[in-house]
C-alpha cells in the first residue's frame, strides 16, 4: 500500500478505518509518521491509485482528514530484507 491518510484526531482515523473496511477496501492503521503530521496517533495506509474513490467515501460519511500522501514507510524494506 503506497498511500497514506493523516488525521487531526484519532476519532476520524478510527471512523475512516471503519468506513473503508466496511466498503471492502484494504486499509491498515499505522503509527502516524512524524515527518508528515505532528499528531501522536495513527494514520491509515491505502492504495494511492484508489484515492479519488476513497476520499469520496470519507466525505460522504463526514470523516475529516488532515492530508493524503503518496507514502511508503521505510519500514516496508525491513521485512523485505529479512
Amino acid at each position, binding site marked *: 500500500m503506497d498511500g497514506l491518510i493523516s488525521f*487531526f*484526531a*484519532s*476519532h476520524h482515523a*478510527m471512523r475512516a*478505518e*471503519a468506513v473503508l473496511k466496511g466498503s471492502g477496501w484494504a486499509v491498515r492503521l499505522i503509527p502516524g509518521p512524524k515527518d508528515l503530521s505532528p499528531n501522536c496517533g495513527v*494514520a491509515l495506509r491505502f492504495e494511492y491509485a484508489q484515492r479519488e474513490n476513497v476520499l469520496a467515501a470519507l466525505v460522504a460519511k*463526514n470523516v*475529516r482528514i488532515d492530508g493524503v500522501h503518496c507514502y511508503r514507510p521505510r519500514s516496508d524494506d525491513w521485512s523485505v530484507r529479512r
Partner: protein
Amino acid sequence: MIYFDNAATSWPKPPAVCAALSDYFGDAGGNPGRAGHRMSVAAARIVENAREAVAELFHANDSSRIVFTQNATHALNLALYGLLRPGDHVVTTSIEHNSVMRPLRHLETLGVELTVVACGADGMVDLDILHHALRSDTRLLVTTHGSNVAGTIMPVAALAAFAHEQRILYLVDASQTAGAIPIDVQHVDLDLMAFTGHKGLLGPTGTGGLYIREGVALSPLIRGGTGSDSAHETQPEFLPDAYESGTLNVAGIAGLAAGVNFLSEIGIDAVKTHEQKLVAQFLAGASEIPGITLYGPRDGALRCGVVSFNVNGVTPSEVGLILDESFGICARTGLHCAPAAHRTLGTFPMGTVRFSFGWFNGPAEIDVALAALRQIGVWARSELATH
C-alpha cells in the same frame, strides 16, 4: 433483595458490560489516540465504537459531536461554564438537580443573571410562565428531561421551540431519561444534552457525555493533552478532542458501549413502556394505601421511572431503614441532591422516599413493595395513635 434505586445508579448491569471491562483490561489495555501500536489502536476503536453507538442511540448524525465526560455533572458544568459569560441571562426551572443549580448559583456570583421558573406542585413547568421568563437577552434555557424526584417528564420539544423562536440555546439534562425514554436530538432540535452512562444507559460509573450541536461553541472546562495537534501548545478547537483532554476512562467507556448495545437490541421504546407500567402499577396500588402521600404527576405516562412518596407520621429516613432492614428493598430517602425540587413539591426539608425502577425490575417486586408499605402504614397509624 429488591433494588429500587436506579435513578442513583442502575443495577444490575447486563453481563456484557462486565465482560467488556474484562476484555479491555485483558486485550486492549492501551491509551487511545496516543500511539499507533496495536494496544493503543484497540483502545481507540473501543472509544470510537462507543461514540458511534451513543450517537446512534440519540440520533446524532455526527458522532464527533458526542463528547465523553466523567458523568452528567461534568457535562453540565462543561456546557454551563463553557457558554455563559457575565451579563448573560439564563433561565431554568425549580425542579432542577443541584448539578444544574449549583453551577448556575455560582455563575450568578460571577455576574450571570439567573431566572428560576416555578414549576407546579407536580413538578410540571407552566409553558406560559416560562415563555414570559425568556428575554431578548436570554442566552440559555436549561431544564431537566425527567425529574429525579417527582419523575415528571418535561415537554422538551415545546421548550426547544420556545427557546429557538427567540434564538436562545437549549440545554437538556437527560440524567434520568437517557436510555429510558427515546431521545432524538435532531428531531427535538436540542443544542446541548448532558447524559450519564451509569443510570439508564446501564454502563459503569465514571462515564457520561455531552451532545453539542454543530455551530455551538463552548470554552473547554479543562485543557491538556489530546494526542492530536501535538506540535501546538494551545488547545485544539475540533471535536471531540477540544473537550477530551487527558486520558479517557476507556474501561468505563467499553462498558458503556456494551450497555448501549444491550439497549439498542431491546429498543428504548420497550424500556419506556416497561418502566411506565411499573410506575402505573405502583401509583395505582400506593394511592389505595391509607396514610401514603404521593408526589408528582398521577398519570404514569407523564413520568419516567421515578416515584416519590411519604408515609404520614414517619420520616423518609425511617421508612428507608425499615424497607431495607425488614424487606430488603433499596430506596433512596431525603432530598436527592435537589432542594429546589423538594421546595416545589412542598417536601423540603425532610424530603421523600424515592423508588426508581429499571429494566431489570418486575411487577412482582412492585407487589412486594406495596405489601411492605401497607404494613408500614398500619404501624405508622398505630404509632401516631399511641403517641
